């Protein structure tokens, strides 16, 4: 690994932009790791499913996490005793978590594209982070609020909708129906 410390790989986005990154950063993606290790190392890897905007974000994530892992590893090797090492890595864990939280503060479209990219490139940490962020957007919202937030249309027929509502009524008992129709009562 130390020998490849300076080796760079070029990643090419779907819209033709090229990103030169250290190999170790690119290998955060299991997909790219397989291409490099199994399919013979290529100097330039085209990623047909990821555009430049998303790819630059993905690379930013990988760079940060590789740097954080290296920092933690070097600190652990210099500190004596696990207690001291544990107390040193804790603040950097917190810093990374804060950085991650800021990283996913993006618009919905970008977030969903990041999810797809993380899945395609097989980067478990990024997939987990982005899926959790998307789930947090959904949590606690009613069906109507979710529809509004993601600008979705309700294409369920009234019969089906009534059936689902009745089935799930027990979970939402306390939520009142809107007064729209009560005006005509």
């Amino acid at each position, binding site marked *: 690994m130390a020998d490849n410390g300076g080796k760079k790989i070029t990643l090419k986005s779907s819209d033709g932009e090229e990103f030169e990154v250290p190999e170790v950063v690119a290998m955060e993606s299991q*997909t790219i790791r*397989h*291409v490099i290790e*199994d*399919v013979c190392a290529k100097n330039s890897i*085209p990623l*047909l*499913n990821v555009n430049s905007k998303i790819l630059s974000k993905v690379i930013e994530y990988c760079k940060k996490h590789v740097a954080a892992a290296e920092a933690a590893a070097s600190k652990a090797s210099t500190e004596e005793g696990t207690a001291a090492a544990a107390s040193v890595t804790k603040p950097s864990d917190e810093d990374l978590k804060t950085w991650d939280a800021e990283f996913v503060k993006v618009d*919905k*479209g970008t*977030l*969903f*594209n*990041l*999810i*797809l990219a993380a*899945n*395609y490139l*097989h980067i478990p940490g990024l*997939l987990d982070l*982005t*899926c*959790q962020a*998307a*789930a947090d957007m*959904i*949590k*606690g*919202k*009613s*069906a*109507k609020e*979710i*529809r509004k937030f*993601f600008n*979705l*249309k*309700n*294409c*369920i*027929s*009234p019969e*089906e*909708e*009534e059936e*689902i*509502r009745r*089935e*799930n009524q*027990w*979970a*939402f*008992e306390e939520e009142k*129906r*809107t*007064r*729209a*129709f009560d005006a*005509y*009562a």
Partner: protein
Amino acid sequence: MALDEFSFHPLSGSRSGRDLDYRFLYPSFGFAPDWDCVDMDCEAADIDCRFNHAAQFSKISATDWEFVAMDCQTPNFLPDDPFEMDVSNPARILPHDPFEMDIQTSLNNAISDLICSLPNLVTTSSSPMVSDESAASSASSEMEVPSSSAPVSAASQIPEGMVYALGYLGVKDLLSVEQVCKSLHEAVRGDPLLWMSIQIDSPLSERINDETLLKVTRKAQGNLRALSMVSCLYVTDEGLRCVLEENPLLTKLYVPECARLTLDGLIPNLKSFNSRNYPGIKHLKLGRLFNISESHYKDLTALLSANSCHPSAQPKPRFYHVARFSMTCNEDRALDIEVCPVCKKCRLVYDCPLESCKGKRDPCRACESCILRCLLCGKCIRDSAYVETFSLEHLCSNCCKCPSVE
């Protein structure tokens, strides 16, 4: 101007028996024979109209109601194809492959070669991830799904990445999501792996009973592996027995604070479950509510040790803290109950995170009645000052200074 295929839920001043049926009279326009439905659960000013095929106007207004078309097009008064050029399909106007380069095939081949050169990306974890990145709306995962249910007719309108996030939602949120639209409904219903691990806590725990518990667990379609019910006050032994019967693959059962469950009901149910040719329950959490006698404890440990995969592994220490009943807390243990070294009763026994307590000959391990602990940090507060909270928990002097109390 007649409305052709105008999708709009009828409104009326009269109520039908089943639901509120409103008829909207607007005599200058004709009515489409079949009404589609719109979002019934919305405010007056807010009802969405959806137009299947271009409405011929952008606004309809009448008596206090104003509907704005969502995606209508401008009125089209010109004839469609006056010169019979078939302009609706412009690709046909130009020659298909004038230089005989067979571009489409060669491009397809190049792309498929590249993708085939990548190894199989099928994941074997239990999360509902799809490896085919072009599957826009398919929500079924790779393993053990009885039927794939990618929506066929409904246009996929949900963001592609959304289905991946469904695996991170709890029960109540999944029930909300399945009411949003057809695609999400099918994504939730069609994926039993979303329901492999079910955790019921507040507020659902206050409402769930035997019948609704069975409804929820049935969504796993027999694939349920872990069930956690915290403070489910209306679930009885019989209800739990039905769940066990329908879910042979269950290995984790957590029932802390479920007041109606009894050990005299639970232990025979578990014995019967574990005696069948299934993996059986390997992890059981009972919490602090049960009054466990020595014979109960013997039965339970015998039951679980027979199924234990790592009988000699040293369990991680158990600490007293706010999230101690969560699903992932101390999930390596077969049974959460132990014999308290101090009072010898069968209870939850906690270790001490305090540095000075760790290396002692007489370890700081006891149930919460024998050693008082801080709710936030779990440290023992035998000699130091503490504060008793409103819910009769204790906070050590360090923690009660923090703003995030309870």
